[in-house]
């Protein structure tokens, strides 16, 4: 809502020197969101005066037609002589009254006006267009003033060029502030001044000879006022002040009738519609649309109507979408002289649905959706009739017929404890304060300790005691609310899950990974790039109706597409050596998803009903993933660095598993999008021995890297945290072991096995075979070559033995080593090298 300060002053006596900023501050404190205060004409400087065109000389020989004019500006130029001005516009004639800026004046831009030689003449000033005066972008032609304008008069004042406009973002509960009347009411409270209510008009009683109206749907339309004005001069223009106000209100001046209906809407908040009476046939009927009915609206769009749409009709059918937009067939045209004015009150829900259904928001629907004062209809119709009769030419007059269709409305009564606002705010408001504040917003208040409050008709948002409490608290001032602290009971800190996620983030960052937070939006092409099979489960996605991009309408089922995109973006920006991680949810649709039910809100839903909501939601497990490119250890003056490899991705999985206290086992696997020979399944083994694949790690498939325009050998890991931690019963409590202070006995063994035997299997056998004396085992060399038979590999392990209670003898350590080797041999065919 745009509120010109000059207009506001008509209804409230604001202090004389009060600026728009001052008023805005007051209104903001009351809860109106004033977004900007526009300074109209701030850089405009006179002399800007009314002139009469005396002579026009057409100058020849230039690219465009140019006029040399003599303009009578009275004494405004100090000499009384005609002002000589060169002008490029042509929409004026001799004797027209125009707006002239004299040398020394400044037009918005700022654009300083001086005497200057142009087109072979000396031009002393400029004849102005609306655009040049900052009155809007619509008109290129110069302004032709009404003939009664006084020569030499100040045009800044005449046109209202210097003003301040408050632009207010009206919240949905404050529909009444979509009008000057509503904002003025707030301003009056803010300044403690009386309000001159523009809706207080003398309105003749309804009678039986007004334009016939039949409301068939009283639930959709509980009030319909129709008035008729005849004899309007189609040529009669809107006066400048009216145009200016409509324009400052953010609407475009169009014609007298349209401007008047818009003006009254801006003033009183009541949307009006004007029908060309000559184009109406029979009574106006308000009803719901029939199946298959259509209507061409004012914007020339043919609309298929829904049976819920509320319509205005005449004998020939629909002539308007009630409260949203009129129809083309009864539109006011160039020859319209007689009009029927509609001032109606429509159901907000019905209007909201129709506007949404047809994607057709209008100034009218915006107001009806938020609630229009039903009692304003009569006054608004009267105001429009008065203005049209006064401005529509000599023969314009209101007909005596007054139609009013009125359905009874329920009166809202709210019972309110007198100390309720005090208990909500923590401020002791006396009863009188409560009653007075509520009366200021228009409520009627009765009672002593328990108040019975009837809100005013323009405040449909006031329905509950807390609504009234807010009125009292905001008018008294939120700054009165004290700063106190509640007694919060002792809490239990973060949950085990929450702490685990933090540990993982810290551990990965500590290991040199940089966290990213990618958008979860993907398209099927992302899965194509990953080389997923057509029936891969990851292609089943949750899909959005209205995605940001049609290319990416779905939600991720894996973190990899986002991470790889971010990797590529970084590489493209010259960030070479990268280790990125992301921790976040993926969205996995259930096999079958019912619609989420619509549950009541007037009670707690049953657990069964809530389960119905849960069933409609996809699984949203927590994942963590990494990608790596370039060097894992940097090159430098110390020598060469170490490029990242598949093993770094597996190591990242171990970092994650260690952070949560789960032991991971690694298996050779084949899984897209990984390299078929360099892919590890990450396996968690539960206490009962059951195994669960929780994710994958390794080098990505060369084809995938090519498709994604990524460098070779990029490695990646993704694992499911929910699966990884599924066996942890709440807290992971690491247990302290006995630290032996006896010396360690080290024994190295080199075992030759077939190349296909996984090192992990050999190591597992060594560990099991060595028994309790084994403290640690470490693979320190893998060798293939001349000294090992074809198709074999040599694995060299350092075994460390230690006893808790004694120094081990060489014989004891050797026996343990031999037992380890024996089991490795049995399990894997390992042969002790050099034996």
């Amino acid at each position: 809502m745009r509120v010109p300060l000059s207009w506001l002053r008509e209804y409230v006596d604001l202090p004389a020197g009060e600026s728009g900023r001052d008023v805005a501050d007051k209104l903001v404190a009351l809860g109106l969101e004033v977004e900007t205060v526009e300074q109209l004409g701030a850089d405009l400087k006179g002399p800007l005066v009314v002139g009469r065109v005396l002579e026009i000389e057409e100058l020849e020989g230039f690219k465009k037609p140019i006029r040399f004019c003599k303009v009578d500006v009275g004494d405004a130029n100090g000499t009384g002589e005609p002002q000589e001005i060169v002008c490029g516009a042509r929409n004026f004639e001799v004797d027209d009254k125009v707006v002239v800026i004299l040398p020394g004046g400044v037009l918005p831009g700022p654009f300083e006006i001086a005497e200057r030689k142009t087109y072979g003449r000396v031009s002393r000033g400029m004849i102005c267009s609306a655009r040049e005066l900052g009155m809007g972008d619509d008109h290129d032609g110069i302004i032709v003033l009404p003939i009664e304008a006084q020569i030499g008069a100040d045009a800044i004042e005449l046109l209202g060029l210097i003003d301040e406009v408050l632009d207010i973002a009206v919240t949905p509960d404050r529909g009444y502030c979509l009008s000057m009347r509503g904002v003025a009411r707030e301003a009056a409270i803010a300044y403690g001044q009386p309000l001159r209510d523009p809706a207080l008009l003398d309105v003749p009683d309804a009678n039986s000879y007004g334009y016939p109206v039949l409301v068939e749907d009283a639930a959709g339309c509980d009030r319909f006022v129709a008035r008729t004005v005849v004899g309007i001069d189609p040529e009669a223009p809107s006066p400048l002040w009216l145009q200016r106000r409509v324009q400052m209100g953010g609407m475009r001046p169009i014609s007298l009738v349209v401007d008047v209906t818009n003006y009254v809407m801006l003033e009183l908040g009541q949307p009006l519609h004007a029908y060309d009476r000559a184009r109406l046939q029979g009574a106006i009927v308000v009803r719901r649309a029939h199946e298959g009915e259509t209507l061409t609206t004012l914007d020339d769009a043919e609309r298929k109507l829904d049976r819920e749409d509320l319509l205005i009709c005449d004998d020939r059918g629909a002539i308007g979408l009630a409260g949203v937009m009129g129809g083309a067939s009864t539109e006011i045209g160039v020859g319209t002289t007689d009009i029927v004015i509609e001032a109606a009150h429509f159901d907000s829900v019905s209007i909201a649905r129709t506007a949404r259904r047809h994607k057709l928001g209008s100034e009218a629907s915006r107001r009806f959706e938020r609630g229009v004062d039903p009692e304003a209809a009569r006054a608004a119709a009267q105001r429009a009739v008065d203005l049209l009769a006064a401005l529509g030419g000599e023969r314009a007059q209101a007909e005596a017929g007054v139609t009013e269709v009125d359905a009874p409305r329920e009166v809202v009564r709210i019972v309110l404890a007198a100390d309720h606002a005090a208990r909500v705010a923590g401020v002791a408001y006396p009863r009188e304060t409560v009653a007075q504040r509520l009366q200021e917003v228009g409520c009627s208040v009765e009672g002593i300790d328990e108040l019975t409050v009837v809100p005013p008709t323009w405040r449909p948002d006031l329905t509950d005691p807390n609504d009234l409490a807010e009125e009292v608290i905001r008018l008294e001032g939120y700054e009165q609310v004290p700063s106190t602290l509640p007694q919060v009971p002792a809490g239990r800190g973060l949950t085990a899950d929450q702490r685990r996620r933090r540990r993982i983030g810290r551990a990965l960052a500590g290991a040199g990974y940089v966290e990213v937070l990618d958008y979860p939006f993907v398209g099927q092409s992302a899965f194509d790039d990953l080389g997923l099979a057509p029936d891969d489960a990851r292609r089943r996605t949750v899909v959005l109706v209205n995605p940001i991009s049609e290319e990416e309408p779905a939600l991720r089922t894996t973190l990899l597409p986002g991470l790889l995109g971010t990797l590529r973006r970084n590489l493209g920006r010259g960030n070479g050596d990268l280790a990125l991680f992301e921790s976040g949810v993926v969205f996995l649709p259930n096999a079958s998803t019912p619609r989420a039910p619509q549950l009541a809100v007037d009670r707690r839903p049953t657990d069964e009903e809530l389960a119905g909501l849960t069933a409609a939601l996809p699984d949203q497990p927590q994942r963590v993933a990494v990608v790596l490119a370039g060097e894992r250890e940097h090159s430098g003056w110390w020598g060469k660095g170490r490029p990242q490899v598949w093993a770094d991705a597996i190591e990242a999985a171990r970092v994650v598993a260690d952070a949560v206290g789960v032991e991971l086992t690694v298996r050779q696997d084949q899984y897209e999008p990984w390299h078929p020979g360099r892919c590890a399944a990450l396996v968690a083994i539960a206490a009962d021995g059951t195994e669960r694949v929780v994710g994958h790690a390794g080098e990505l498939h060369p084809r995938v890297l090519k498709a994604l325009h990524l460098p070779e050998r990029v490695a990646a890991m993704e694992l499911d945290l929910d699966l990884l931690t599924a066996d942890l019963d709440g807290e992971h409590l690491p247990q302290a072991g006995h630290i032996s202070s006896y010396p360690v006995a080290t024994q190295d063994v080199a075992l030759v096995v077939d190349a296909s035997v996984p090192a992990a299997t050999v190591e597992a056998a060594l560990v099991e075979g060595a028994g309790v004396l084994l403290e640690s085992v470490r693979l320190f060399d893998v060798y293939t070559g001349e000294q090992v038979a074809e198709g074999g590999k040599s694995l060299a392990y350092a075994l460390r033995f230690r006893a808790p209670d004694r120094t081990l003898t060489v014989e004891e350590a050797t026996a343990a080593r031999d037992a380890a080797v024996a089991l490795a041999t049995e399990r894997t065919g390992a042969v002790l090298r050099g034996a």
Partner: protein
Amino acid sequence: MSAPNKSYDPVEVEALKPEEVERARDAALAAVAAASDLAELQEAKVAHTGDRSPLALANREIGALPPQAKAEAGKRVGQARGAVKKALEQRQVELEAERDARVLVEEAVDVTLPWDRAPRGARHPLTTLSERIEDLFVAMGYEVAEGPQVEAEWYNFDALNILPDHPARTMQDTFFVRAEDGSADSGVVLRTHTSPVQIRTMLTRTPPIYVICPGRVYRTDELDATHTPVFGQIEGLAVDKGLTMGDLKGTLDHFVQAMFGEGIVTRLRPSYFPFTEPSAELDLKCFVCRGASVGDPERPCRTCRSEGWIEWGGCGMVNPRVLIACGIDPEVYSGFAFGVGLERALMFRHNVEDMRDMVEGDVRFTLPFGMEI
């Protein structure tokens, strides 16, 4: 080693003769004096004071002497060994000083050589900022509650008093999830705020409830310098007996002081949210200029655009209708709630100029934020 001497004649023991002891001592002192570095000194030490050195051997013979001879021989050998020990210590100090002066200088390196062999990592500042706020409230006794990002409309709207035809339902530009039959009517959305977590909390816990709800939320804004369709929110909820707006204000004041420094307070401006009544916009006093930039064109403040206050979020008293939908009796309990945007906080707290920097994952943006902010 000699066998025990049965004759008890001290003269018979060659090693204990005064001249012998003297000679051994002098040889030792000469060797110590001749040692030119710490290694040679160590050699001299082993040779002249080690187990096989003449003085050590002589010392061992004393035990075999008759009692009357022991005292004299012991004194003689003891003095000699003491002199050698002293000389050794002295020479050790001298040689170490010499080494320090010469060798360590030769071993000097250029310590300004760069060493960034191991890559640095960092956490995303939105994550650490959220944790920072969570920790603050956890310290006050709150717990951290979480919920799904794809959420039923009932949780995201209805239960929060945002009813199907209310204009507020379209205030938040919502991503709708497609139903199985392809229609838009799945009853499921991408949550537009973390408030559904408040509903879930109220449905599963009994008051007193004090929780903080961080998480990702979604609205259909195109990404630009000041908007992103995916962003982070953190909301607080308290439901207890007798809570007032004063408690809300006090909690927020404590919050902003902990985040932005002593003396920073909040300002509440009346506003509208369907789920709170009364409702307020939440501003905090500019922690950079502390209001000094207002009306002073000479000292403009970039952080608050010389407004003196920074808009951060929304808050209010939980609408009793919301309590009813969660099965909490509003006659017994009242509550307050607040919510702030993480991206916005990162922008004004850390001077991030473009929202896209938080989204694009450029490591140059993230690395300086390290592990905590």
